[in-house]
């Protein structure tokens, strides 16, 4: 991962209503959403700064009305931010002309929408080929590329179906294929799986992880589903009332919720499914005798818990290069599995 951020937001505001800009200037960027509401202004995004690096998957999580989709729309410039700076690949997004913006979207950005946004008059193949065609590719070229994308998302045999003839999951596969057709560097997904039923959602998440494993895009993923965020994210930004409450890795969010609001989300999360071995291991103590078993520091606790508990001795934790970097005691694992829960239940 290079340290240069692909997407960078500096104090981004989005406020809906008349004279939003002036009002914002008057308060010097300190926004109280209740006072603004009284003035007839709705605060969408409130002083958000964040960076996304190359190949990173940042999930923006929040309930409806938290401003998560608005933030995404600002970064894709489907809506113009009221104030602040947004850089994409070092370019100042808000300073781009209409033409430059179109160029950027045609070559660098792809987006998937909650309600799919497929063109109803075009077939699966035509929908996927559409971004290429508006870019000016020849029919043959765009159709060939679209056919590859159909393969990628596993819709072979349905090229000539219309969106209305497909199930929700299939439609979203088309949406995904379309957004990837131009081979964008940056991939926006706005609640892509929220309209799907739970089983299909799980299937699509797996599919998404598979694709990301192959493609390694820089991704901004918006969802209201905390479990989905935990499952997919490299880092999660939790939003409330337009403000980012916490931006951190899934395990840090679960272990150290920054605010009461975030803690409420993490309460019911099965820790063993989020925490990595690294986060509960002890520093290496040379005097201790370790068992034979080696576990990776990046492993999720749940996946190694059974093995560790069946060991009599503490287990060695290794990094990617097989160097021992710490030890893991069964007592910690037991605490993760049962401790937190019982403590909480007595609290309640």
């Amino acid at each position, binding site marked *: 991962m290079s340290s240069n951020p692909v997407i960078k937001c500096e104090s981004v505001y989005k406020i809906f209503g008349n004279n939003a800009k002036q009002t914002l200037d008057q308060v010097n960027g300190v926004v109280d959403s209740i006072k603004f509401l009284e003035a007839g202004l709705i605060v969408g995004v409130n002083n958000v700064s964040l960076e996304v690096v190359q190949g990173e998957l940042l999930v923006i999580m929040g309930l409806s009305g938290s401003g998560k989709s608005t933030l995404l*729309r600002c970064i*894709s410039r*489907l809506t113009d931010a009221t104030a602040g700076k947004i850089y994409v690949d070092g370019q100042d997004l808000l300073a781009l002309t*209409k*033409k430059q913006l*179109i*160029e950027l*979207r*045609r*070559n660098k*950005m*792809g*987006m998937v*929408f*909650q*309600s*799919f*946004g*497929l*063109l*109803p*008059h*075009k*077939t699966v*193949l035509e929908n996927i080929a*559409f*971004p290429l*065609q*508006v*870019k000016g590719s020849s*029919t043959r070229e765009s*159709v060939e590329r679209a056919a590859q994308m159909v393969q990628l998302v596993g819709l072979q045999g349905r*090229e*000539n179906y219309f969106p209305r003839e497909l199930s929700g999951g299939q439609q979203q596969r088309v*949406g995904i294929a*379309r*957004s990837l057709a*131009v081979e964008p560097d940056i991939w*926006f997904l706005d609640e892509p799986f929220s309209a799907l039923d739970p089983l299909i959602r799980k299937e699509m998440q797996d599919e998404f992880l598979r694709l990301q494993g192959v493609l390694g895009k820089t991704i901004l993923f918006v969802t209201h589903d905390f479990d989905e965020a935990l499952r997919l994210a490299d880092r999660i930004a939790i939003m409330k009332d337009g403000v980012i409450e916490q931006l951190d890795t899934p395990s840090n969010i679960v272990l150290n919720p920054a605010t009461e609001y975030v803690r409420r989300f993490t309460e019911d999360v099965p820790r063993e499914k989020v925490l990595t071995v690294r986060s509960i291991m002890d520093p290496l103590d040379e005097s201790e005798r370790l068992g034979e078993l080696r576990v990776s520091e990046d492993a999720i606790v749940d996946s190694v818990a059974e093995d560790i508990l069946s060991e009599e001795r503490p287990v060695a934790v290794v990094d990617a290069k097989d160097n021992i970097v710490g030890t893991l005691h069964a007592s910690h694992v037991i605490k993760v599995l049962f401790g937190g829960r019982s403590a909480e239940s007595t609290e309640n």
Partner: protein
Amino acid sequence: MDLLTKHPKAVQFFVLLAVFFLLCLLISPSDSNVLWRFPPLLKQLPFIINDSVRYLMFDWMPVQVYDPIIDDFEEKPLFREFTRSISSIFLLVINFVREIFLGGVKTVVAFTDWDFINENPWVRWPALPWTVIAGWAIILGYKLQGKGLAILAGICTIYLAVFGQWKPSMETLSFVLIAAPVSVLLGLIFGIWAFKSKAVEIALNPLLNVAQTMPHYSYLVPVIVLFGVGDHAAAIATIVFASPPMVRLTLLGLKKVPADIVDSGLMSGCNAFQMMFRVLIPTARRDILIGVNQVVMQCLAMTVIASFIGAQGLGSNLMIALNSLRVGTGIEIGVCIVLIAVLLDKMSLAWANKQTDYFADLTFFQRNRFALVALVVFVLGSILAYIGSFIFRDSYNYLYIVPHNKGITTAPFWQLTVDWIWDTFFYALKAFNEFLITKILEPMKSMYLAMPVAATFVLMMGAGYILAGVRQALIIGGFLLFIALSEYWDRALITAYIASFAVIVSAVFGIVVGSICAQNNTASKVILLICDFLQTFPSFIYLIPVIMLFGITDTSVIIATVVYASVPATRYTVEGLRSVPQVMHDAGSMLGVSRWQRWISIELPLAFPHIMLGINQTVIFALFMVIIGAFIGTTDLGQLILKAISDPQGTGIGLTLGLCVAFMGLAVDQIIRTWADNRKKALDLA
């Protein structure tokens, strides 16, 4: 008090009616009484309109124009030059299309002159044999959709040829083929413009409202003044008449495009042009297609009316036939118009739905097979026509062109049927006719005419206030004031009486039939199909069978109006009832309601706003038909409009009368639409 809190509207209505009748009793009918009839303050309006049009046409902005005949520059008014050039362009294009079908010299003349034609008699553009055009229509139908449409195209074209209506049909077709695309294009342009600019939308809205409620006839007079008489004038009148629904539906469709699709278009990197033509318009296709369909229907509806100002073709033949009571011929021509309408309708639909196959690997012959077959048809048809010239050496060459009225005809059969109906049912029909006129229509007419103008205002504005609010009441007042201050209040009352009678009958009929059919899936489908089919008929066609039965009387007009106006009432009732959510039915069933109770207390209240929109359409349809009915002799506004066509002062009179009719329609429209919108919102249906 209990009643007041429970049904405030009912009490308000009761009070309103009481005031209304009180006013009717108190205001004495005398010409000097202002409350009885308002003074015609707008009497001068027609003349002002005439003077302005004349100024515009003959005096405004003279420019120097080169005249090739006197070989010098001459001073001519700008506007007239402008309308003249539009006229000549239209005439040229219509003639060109017409001569492709029928042959002729006018297109050649347009580029040379008559002398050239006289010196070179060979430069006649030959007509295509009818077999070739029929063949092409079939191929086109097959290419666009498949066997079904090909068969339909075959039946239509062969019918036109065999029944000896080929020439007028092609004349009508050439006129529609120009008017319809131009209307669609204009509609699209204005629709897109209104979509892009709120100001344009606000400016267009009242214009469209008036244009869509103006009776067909009133378009004719100003067009004569501006563009003269002939096919081009008819085409222009048709375009003015047919474009507004297209504008409306384009705008509506574009507005309905989901935000997600717009966003996805933007993120796909569309520029403004690609956004409009590759995302928005195709996505709005459904509504835009309904617009195209409406345009085609309006064009064919206008062919008959446009014949008043010189459109040639089926329309003028139909008029002549109806005028001379040759019902049989009328029916045959009517069928021609309907067939052309249905065929164009289906073809435009199929064209818009066509798909491309990207994976097909085709050879040259496969790719161009339709063009090749068309060429073969052309050659074969020509050869057939040539052979025909030997077979039919002494009579008409039926394999080339079937001359007008020289085909098969079923007219004698229809004439016999009519005679038989008259002989058999004469007394019954006569009795019905007399009963209707003396017992219902005449009393109703006198009642309407006995209303003091002040009472009418109170009634209409009061109803507007109760149902829709103060704003609407004031708007309605404004509309009525225009009519009351013109000279035509009494005439308008007559129009109102015929129309309201027809509306009541149609509404009752539509709601009853619609409700019965909506109880059953198959019946709903069948009735909607019938409605579709009836709506393809140009309005004039409805007059044919009623004239056949009732001759030229008010009864005919009323029956034609009732039939024509029942269609929207029925359709909206079925649609409204069918759109009541299933869960409501289920909830009702679990509460143990009977079918009747379900209809009364669940379906009807929920569907009522939509049904009222149907009644709204019924009112507009009825007004249209009543005005058209002037053609067979009613004594309302329509009669005056018809007269205005041949009056030198006609422009102003025709337009004023047209506005009167439009305002009547719009007044009702205001009440019902606002009420239905509010109601739908209240029921959470919108």
